[in-house]
């Protein structure tokens, strides 16, 4: 009997969460190309790290894809598909140069992994091909989205509440705005370089 009550309570809780999950949408303007919009850290809330490991490839002297957004605690795998030697390093995470790291060298077809525990943008570089670059944006919450070609975005499954939402774009200054979600929330950004 007691076990049944627990199950029912859990189901009700889950249903209530779903019922209160909303969206944050808006538009990022002032820049062209893909931007990232994410919910900043929520006081008192932590989120389990995803088990999925996104892969960033080095192919044809390019990082592919150019932009990857991951939740804090995600492990990213770096693959070298080229028949030339490559390297991956970053000089900072979120501007903090103490978090710079160099993954070294590894042969074609092999991967190296790294777990990103600190939120912020990670500018990836290759020290033998200076033109190569990519970005990992590490977000403190699982609530993030990238913009479409028009700059529109939509973050799904955000619980009702008040948040700080940040927009990031390569080479532009971050912009943060407070947003309240009550089923829906809205935040537009105009970024500048």
């Amino acid at each position, binding site marked *: 009997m007691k076990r049944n009550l627990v199950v029912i309570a859990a189901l009700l809780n889950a249903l209530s969460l779903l019922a209160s999950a909303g969206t944050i949408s808006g538009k990022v303007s002032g820049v062209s190309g893909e931007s990232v919009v994410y919910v900043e850290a929520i006081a008192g809330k932590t989120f389990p790290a995803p088990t999925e490991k996104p892969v960033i490839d080095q*192919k044809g002297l390019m990082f592919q894809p150019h932009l990857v957004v991951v939740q804090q605690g995600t492990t990213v795998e770096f693959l070298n598909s080229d*028949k030339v*030697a490559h390297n991956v390093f970053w000089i900072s995470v979120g501007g903090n140069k103490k978090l710079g790291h160099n993954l070294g060298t590894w042969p074609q077809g092999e991967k190296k992994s790294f777990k990103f525990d600190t939120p912020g943008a990670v500018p990836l570089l290759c020290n*033998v091909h200076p033109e190569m670059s990519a970005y990992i944006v590490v977000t403190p919450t699982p609530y993030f989205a990238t913009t479409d070609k028009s700059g529109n975005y939509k973050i799904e499954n955000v619980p009702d509440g008040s948040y700080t939402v940040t927009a990031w774009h390569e080479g532009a200054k971050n912009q943060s705005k407070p947003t309240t979600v009550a089923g829906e929330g809205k935040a537009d950004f105009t970024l500048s370089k």
Partner: protein
Amino acid sequence: MRSRRPLISLTLLLLTLAVLSSSSYAIPAFSRQYGTSCATCHVDFPKLNDFGKAFKDAGFKFPKDDESFLKVPPVMLGAPAQKDLWPHTIFPGTIPGLPPIGLRFNTFFQVVSKNRNDINAANLANPGTFIPRTDFQPGLFSIFMAGNFGSDIAFWVDEDLSVGGSNADGGLGDGYLKFVNVGRFFKLPTDSLSLRIGQFELDLPFSPARSHNLSGWDIFDEANIGAMSSLVPEQNVNNAFAMSSAAQGIEFSGGHTYRGYHYSLAIVNQNTGGNPSSGDTVQPVVGFFSDSNFKDLYGRFSYRFNLERDPASRNEVQAAGATGPRDHTYLNLGSFYFYGRSVQRFQGANGVLTAREPFYRLGGDFSFNYHAFNLYGMYMYGHDKNLTLFPDAETATGFQSGVPATFSGGFLQADYMLAPWVMGIMRYDVVKSSADRINTFGTELSPLSATRNRFTPGVQFLIHANIKAALEYQIRPQQTVFDSDGNRIAKPFRTNSAVADLEFVY
């Protein structure tokens, strides 16, 4: 018998030009085609890193899987399937999707020490070139094209559109086709035989034409014109050929320059005048001329020991460093030999006499690299057989062997990358010659023998990967010159000079 004063003046002028306009090239055309930085192939352009050496060895292609790196697809001059129809159709090839053109310009500023004109002051009746204390000088404006036509056929053409601001002084540098790995048709090991045809710089241990130094290595520019002092036995040698001279001919080569063995064997036009010759320079008059009827020979063999501990890394194009790929730690040892004939014509008692003086150049070289530090150098010995008129200049009917004209020398240079964009250089050049062209002003001032040496510290900054600022200071220790009575007759022509250079390629 011969007036050497014009030759000496010309030599001084050429030396000044050599100081001010060393040819060097990086290839923006490849940057455009592959969408990659100059730094992919160059340490400090035009000095190649290990990948750049492999790229060049492969015929201006990525050593493996070249097509996947091209950002601008080549234009097909025939479908690949046409290969199966050959010889009933033209073998399909490609041309680069963009005209593979690169341009380069450089400009100089130099400051020369106070004694720069002392040698002229000692001979005001017939002075040589007066040199200003400071001077701004435009250098080269060059166009160069290079790439691959598919089927492992590479090409290179570079042309100086102007030199020193004068449109008239330019000329073809290298222009050749290279058939890479033709040994496959004879079932030889991969890359063991390639063929290069056209006008090219000899496969020297270190390329004067593509050197990152502002001034050329003296030993590569050394001609052999024999002693001019009346105190030594007569030498009629007048061979303006220098190892840096362009050659016209055919070259067989094989191996790699980034690991293991490398060889080349070239058969090139005879060259006495210091310029590559063609048939129409053979003139039946007194003087010295190049004569393409005879072919000079050049051979080189080198072996590079990659010294990485990890065997897998040792055999790769670049070593796997802890913080990324880098040039190998290596020791490269090599040797080279050039054999030719120098053609001179004299007025004999019964007409013009032709002397074909055999000469050779023999040398050895090394290069040691450890991470960002590269120490390298070479030694060369030059020997020209000296044919003097027999029985004497007035009644000459033939030639007899005289005292050979010889010289020797080399250089030792260290490059250190203080940062990926800053290279520090220290270099020592030495040439010991029985007729040092730098210090001689005429037969009356000629030293019996001379050791010409200089220290050249320098620093180079990459402002961008394609823009460079460079500075070098040439320190020439003074050398005493005595007349036939043993008196010191003039301060020698040994000037220190500082040269600054700005150059860009695009």
